[in-house]
């Protein structure tokens, strides 16, 4: 990008103010600025609420937060409301602490690619609420989807998705349970990508459907548009996305060319029928259906003002809210009208039941389960709380709409918010307790640590009319999105130890097996000893070390690190991991336990003698 980031943001702001001339943006709204609403101020705050955000020593949080890690490639687990980081799960990245990317098992998952860009973590559902089985997360960088098992909180599958770039907007099926999940492609490319000379006007995006259990691509729907965020409805009927580049632009100004873009809806029954009717082509090894305008009845296109970003469905399942980004509005789409559009009974735009003014740069919307929406507003650097029904009603009351009476509160956040998420907000059981504002800049909120700074995530109490910031926390590169899940849902699923024999390599008896120059070293780890005290190797041997942790006590992990061989990994109770290396350096090499395990942890070591 030739324009630097700050200038680009300014440019966006300008575009919002100057170029927001779409017919869909009402005159009344354009005349209003943010001053008309007024920022939240100290005086405006309600009296202190009893709602306690302090989690004292020995107490546990009420919610699990599952966070993406952006270009750190990982997923993180935070406790809410304490905002304590409880775990980092390596997903698409190398993690030398746990040995993810070093062990044979993790290498098989990563296939040599350990740069990743995680954006959206979503859980598997049953009847509109998380079932605690899986988490899924996308890799925008290398176009992969990873699945995390919630019982062990580790990655068990990674799927490479062909024909797309800029994988974005992952979302899981909410009803009746998660059999499918969808991901988008934010970047249009030649499909298949084997004709570099192809004109950008011939590029395509693909909406990809994935089987959640098998972790295989079910099909892709070829589109002209790019696709940004995604959502599914609460009826198991549709997936929905926003598109900001219907222009097929390859420069910023080209992408801003049109006054409107789309909300796209994909009809799952029709997709299933098209597949069983064989209406697909095989491209890059997967079934591709044609979803382009006029080519099939699989999709509809609802015009949304200029470059919308987030799409979020209200917990009552009634509305999809597209946040305007370049347009200062949110578009509220009635989901129960969508079928009529598919059937040609009404026009796509007839689904839009409200288009309230929100502020400059609305990005994402979340819900409190009490009929209110809260939208993150990037350029204004605010969270805006508004009433959905009021916004709908005001479409018939021009005076009220002009007054922006749907807006309940505006909260300044520090600084420049991206995603926001309220507790349980992406489920039927949204409970309106807390909201996290994932702000992209921390600036002066923490001690200065040099030019590269962490992000600032703010915890907001949303139980009252007024939004109230109660806590700032620093986040390393660079969470995009999160979900916040009630503790009981996860707590009953997550385990303290592995099932040892789920892994066929599990070592029950230590020993060394040699076949030519291939040597297998099987080790048990029991605090404070490995099952062997020494292993004799010959220079050039291809050595596979398999370690099984035989300690059953919860939290008693062992490390296996091999001096000067660049090897380290950790095995949790009853877990087995392996690593393969060439014994290319003669000498005596101590292997030792890196993960503190016992009073004699330091003595937990053994020699590999390479002659």
């Amino acid at each position, binding site marked *: 990008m030739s324009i630097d980031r700050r200038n680009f943001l300014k440019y966006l702001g300008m575009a919002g103010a100057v170029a927001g001339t779409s017919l869909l943006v009402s005159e009344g709204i354009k005349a209003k600025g943010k001053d008309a609403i007024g920022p939240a101020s100290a005086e405006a705050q309600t009296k202190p609420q009893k709602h306690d955000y302090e989690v004292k020593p*020995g*107490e*546990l949080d009420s919610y699990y937060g599952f966070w993406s890690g952006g270009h750190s490639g990982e997923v993180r687990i935070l406790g809410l409301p304490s905002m304590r980081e409880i775990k980092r799960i390596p997903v698409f990245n190398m993690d030398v602490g746990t040995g993810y990317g070093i062990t044979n098992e993790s290498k098989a998952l990563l296939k040599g690619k350990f740069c990743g860009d995680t954006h959206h973590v979503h859980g598997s559902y049953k009847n509109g609420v998380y079932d605690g089985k899986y988490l899924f997360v996308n890799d925008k960088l290398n176009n992969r989807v990873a699945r995390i098992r919630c019982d062990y909180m580790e990655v068990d599958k990674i799927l490479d998705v062909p024909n797309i770039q800029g994988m974005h907007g992952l979302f899981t099926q909410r009803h009746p349970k998660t059999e499918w999940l969808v991901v988008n492609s934010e970047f249009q490319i030649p499909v298949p990508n084997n004709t570099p000379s192809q004109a950008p006007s011939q590029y395509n995006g693909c909406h990809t459907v994935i089987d959640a259990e098998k972790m295989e691509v079910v099909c892709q729907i070829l589109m002209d548009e790019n696709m940004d965020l995604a959502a599914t409805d609460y009826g198991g009927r549709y997936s929905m996305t926003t598109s900001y580049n219907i222009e097929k632009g390859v420069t910023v100004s080209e992408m801003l060319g049109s006054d409107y873009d789309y909300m796209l809806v994909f009809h799952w029954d029709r997709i299933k029928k098209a597949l069983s009717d064989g209406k697909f082509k095989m491209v890059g090894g997967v079934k591709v259906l044609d979803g382009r305008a006029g080519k099939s009845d699989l999709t509809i296109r609802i015009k949304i003002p200029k470059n919308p970003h987030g799409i979020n469905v209200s917990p009552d399942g009634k509305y999809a809210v597209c946040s305007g980004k370049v347009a200062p509005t949110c578009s509220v789409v009635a989901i129960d009208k969508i079928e009529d559009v598919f059937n040609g009974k009404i026009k796509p735009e007839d689904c839009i039941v409200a288009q309230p003014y929100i502020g400059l740069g609305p990005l994402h919307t979340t819900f409190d389960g009490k009929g209110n929406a809260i939208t993150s507003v990037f350029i204004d650097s605010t969270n805006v709380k508004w009433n959905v029904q009021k916004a709908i009603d005001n479409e018939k009351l021009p005076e009220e709409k002009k007054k922006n009476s749907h807006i309940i509160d505006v909260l300044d956040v520090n600084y420049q918010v991206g995603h926001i998420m309220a507790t349980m907000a992406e489920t039927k059981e949204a409970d309106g307790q807390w909201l996290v504002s994932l702000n992209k800049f921390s600036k002066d909120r923490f001690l200065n640590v040099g030019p590269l700074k962490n992000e600032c995530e703010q915890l907001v109490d949303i139980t009252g009319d007024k939004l109230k910031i109660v806590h700032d926390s620093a986040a390393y590169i660079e969470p995009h999105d999160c979900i916040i899940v009630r503790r*009981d849902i996860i*707590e*009953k699923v997550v385990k*303290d130890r592995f099932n*040892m*024999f789920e892994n066929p390599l*599990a070592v*029950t*008896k*230590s020993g060394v097996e040699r076949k030519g120059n291939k040597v297998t070293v099987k080790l*048990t780890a*029991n605090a*404070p*000893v490995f*099952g062997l005290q020494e292993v004799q190797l010959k220079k050039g041997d291809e050595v596979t070390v398999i370690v099984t942790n*035989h300690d*059953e*006590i*919860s*939290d008693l992990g062992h490390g296996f690190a091999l001096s000067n061989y660049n090897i380290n990994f950790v095995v949790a109770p009853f877990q087995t991991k392996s690593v393969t290396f060439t014994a290319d350096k003669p000498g005596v090499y101590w292997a030792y336990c890196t993960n503190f395990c016992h*009073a*004699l942890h330091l003595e937990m070591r053994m020699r590999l003698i390479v002659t």
Partner: protein
Amino acid sequence: MKKIIVLLFVLMLPVAALADKPKFLEHRYEYKLEDVLKADKYEKKDRYWEAYTAGKLVGYVLLSKDWTKQHVGYAGKHMETLIGFDTKGQITGVKVVFHAEPIVLIGLKEENYDNFMKQYKGMAITQGMSVGNEIKMDAITGATVTAVVQNAIIAESARKVASMSGIIQHAHQKSHKLSKKFEALSWKDLMDSGAVKNIVVTQEEIGQGGKEPYIDLFFGLVAPPSIGKNVLGERAYADAMDTLKEGESAVFIFSNGPGSFKGSGFARGGVFERFNLEQDDKSYVFTDKDYKILTDIAAKGSPALREGGIFIIRAKDFDQSKPFKLKLVIGYRAGNEKKFKPAVSDYKLPDKFMEQ
């Protein structure tokens, strides 16, 4: 294929448990039956010996592994103990035959272990034999898990044999099914009915002045809906009951005050060394596999809690309808010295929570 895996699992599990455990901490000792009870003839019975002197029965000798193998110590292994007692139920001697307890790691020697064991001679197995009370920890201070488990091994093994030989006679108690009925009860209702019991150890009782509790502990059975659902709340009760397998039971325990009933031994050895349950001859010790943290009490008017847990009794011989005891040994510091304060409470499920 699935069948094979299941079969392998079953076959390999005992192997896994035994494979490659550290050997350097293991101690095995020769023994003779007369080491614990002098007699001129020992007659082998099913799982114990009768000892005779001049043709007269003088007592019994047994090996603990035949009776209480489920009790394992810090090292995850049973401390095999030879136990003798006379016909009045007085212990005549105990001797450790095998153990793998890592007492060396806290600067203790085998002779310290011996000294701990010497205390048992002369103890009446029909009476209390609690660590911190009749049994002092001084000899193996620090090895609390070892002491508690060793004590459970001796007491329970001896009592089981004493019951068989008629030295201990239990009043016959009829077993009842738990009532499935639910009645909304406040904390006061639960306390008044005896469904929840309370143990208080004051600061004064441990010589630290002040009437405030050092530990203020509450416990009760989880399963009766009118107790469990009221105490834990509907959702947590359902989750807890879901985790119980056929024949298993559970208690909830929580406390306030600076004293801790959980301690930290479970973090290292997996065993909770500060409390156990006793019913008839049996003693129930808990490990971290039997534990789920408890942080909220739902019952109206309940006290706050500083620490708590739901503890699952795996053994199927525990009868929830019969009386049992919760025994506590609370560790505290007097100056730089580690001390232990025992406390006990009887629990009898009130009739209204049982089917009559």
